[in-house]
């Protein structure tokens, strides 16, 4: 009696998903292939270009930006100089640039996709009800799982890495864009409407500026998640610091693994402070 499951056939859920993925991958090959090839090529040359800039110039640039973004304080600038010099010294500069371009492109795409979806959610209760569970699903599914369809669609390399990162890292931007707009005070929305704003004017002149801080917090989270995807994506051949960590893991080489990991930490801290400073910059007026 208690073992009634023996009498029920197993639902071939896994099989269905595989089949569906196969169908999608086949029927959208016309879409995926050019993305894989053209976009992949573009991505690689962008990464190569970054890597080709002399490290000294990059480090100086980052230091100057850090100085101004942190309100003319030396802390972040000094940290950037020391940290980046260390990465360079360890012979990981090219890997750092590769990882950075992966994070940069993935985050940009996440924002480009995420902000409009967040706006849609804030404007429509129906959209919110549909999208919220999808976001929950996207964020709770272990990130590794996304690697499998990513490979099915885009084979291996940077492109599937970015695809997996998109799914994993976009939700915070969507959520916080929605939240930010919904939090705008009723009276300000009424003021915008009472003076005869169109929907677009209301959005761009009042709601988005008011929600900016919240949206930037979401973008910051997105960037951090994209960065955490750097290691995971190396499992499907994405190059960069993650690949060093992975290969060190396979050889049980603690030292090399630690150094590559440290490189990721340094990158993470710099990116985090940079995106945070964007969200706080005009905050004095708010």
């Amino acid at each position, binding site marked *: 009696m208690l073992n009634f499951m023996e009498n029920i056939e197993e639902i071939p859920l896994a099989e269905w998903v595989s089949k569906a993925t196969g169908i999608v991958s086949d029927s959208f090959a016309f879409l995926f292939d050019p993305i894989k090839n053209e976009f992949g090529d573009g991505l690689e040359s962008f990464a190569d270009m970054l890597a080709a800039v002399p490290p000294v110039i990059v480090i100086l640039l980052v230091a100057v930006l850090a100085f101004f973004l942190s309100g003319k304080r030396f802390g972040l600038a000094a940290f950037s100089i020391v940290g980046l010099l260390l990465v360079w010294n360890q012979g990981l500069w090219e890997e750092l640039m590769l990882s950075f371009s992966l994070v940069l492109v993935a985050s940009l795409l996440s924002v480009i996709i995420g902000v409009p979806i967040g706006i849609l959610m804030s404007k429509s209760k129906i959209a919110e009800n549909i999208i919220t569970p999808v976001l929950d699903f996207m964020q709770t599914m272990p990130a590794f799982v996304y690697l499998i369809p990513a490979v099915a669609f885009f084979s291996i390399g940077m492109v599937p890495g970015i695809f997996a990162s998109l799914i994993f890292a976009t939700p915070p931007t969507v959520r916080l864009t929605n939240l930010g707009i919904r939090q705008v*005070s009723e*009276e*300000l929305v*009424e*003021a*915008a*409407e*009472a*003076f*005869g*704003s*169109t929907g677009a*004017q209301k959005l761009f*002149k*009042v709601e988005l*500026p*008011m929600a*900016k801080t919240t949206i930037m917090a979401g973008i910051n989270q997105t960037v951090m998640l994209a960065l955490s995807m750097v290691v995971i994506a190396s499992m499907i051949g994405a190059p960069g610091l993650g690949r060093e960590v992975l290969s060190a893991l396979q050889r049980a080489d603690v030292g090399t693994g630690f150094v590559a990991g440290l490189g990721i930490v340094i990158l993470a801290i710099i990116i985090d402070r940079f995106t945070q400073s964007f969200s706080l910059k*005009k905050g004095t*007026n*708010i």
Partner: protein
Amino acid sequence: MPVIKVEGLSKVFGKNVKQALKLLEEGKTKEEILKQTGSTVGVNRASFEVEAGEIFVIMGLSGSGKSTLVRLLNRLIDPTEGHVIVDGEDLATMNKKDLLRVRRTKMSMVFQKFGLFPFRSILENTEYGLEVQGIAKEERSKKARASLEMVGLGNYVDQYPSQLSGGMQQRVGLARALANDPEVLLMDEAFSALDPLIRKEMQDELLDLQDTMKKTIIFITHDLDEALRIGDKIALMKDGSIVQVGSPEEILMNPANDYVEKFVEDVDRSKVLTAYNIMKRPETVNIDKHGPRVALERMQKEGISTIYVTDSKRNLRGYVTADDAVVALRSDVTNLTAILKTDAPSVPKDTLMNAIFDISHNSPVPITVVEDGKLLGIIVRGAVISALAGQGEVNLTHA
């Protein structure tokens, strides 16, 4: 010609709107309808007219539907039923495009918590209504600056709202509303968030501005003192319905029902009634025609001990007492000039009663109400006291 004409305007919040409307027709109360249908009656078949240049105050307790009503006027809330006719156009049935036009050019709104955009400077805030119309930067900046000048904030254009005090912020709210020169101003509890002194200042300023602007203003408040101070007409709301519309004096002296009476009960009448409201027609003699004999006769007939003296053009000259008149008669004086006294206190007709009270207390003769040198009326001490107590005859026609 009324600028705004509201006809049978209703708003029901909730799902069973049709049923709720039917119950309203049947005369069910807001509470009964909420119980039966789960819908809330915001506004219940309101009808009224607002004349051009008038300050029309809508007053009522919390939840009586004031905010809902004012938002129906510019359709921030869509009406369930009824019409809002502004300059001959019905907003209730108007398409989106026309509605934008009306909001941009005919009506502006001032908000309780100011509704300023914190990330915009004072100038940019004031420009907002012009900006959404697509007016060129230079022109809108010029208009916005002029508007800020008008409320006395010409020097604050580059500041941000958080740098200003509450009173100043609401001036910006007012300047923003005036910048596109609308016919109608909607003010929802515009001064309620300010402390009492600033509030009074703002009321005075609004009245000053109104003297030159002559806008049509719909002003929401739950404060009767404020309503009486600034309103030309007052509408009282209860449970979504308008229970009485009238001039401040009418509301005060002839409350339409218990609700209104409760509302006006604790009003300090001394802050509302003016000299004009309580003065009496004076008994006078003409200095060009009459002598002490006529004066004495009149006083004896009326049972009074002083009489006011005017000339043929009704200009006030002074008064004479009965005692002086008797002395003059005995010494064969035929002219009133010799015994004329000119120390009677006089006030303009719109003097508030609390000011009159002090004067009448210290004066042995009735106070004169004078306009352009002419005697309009007199106020005897008894009249002041009985009016303060809410009794006695009061002149309700508008001064």
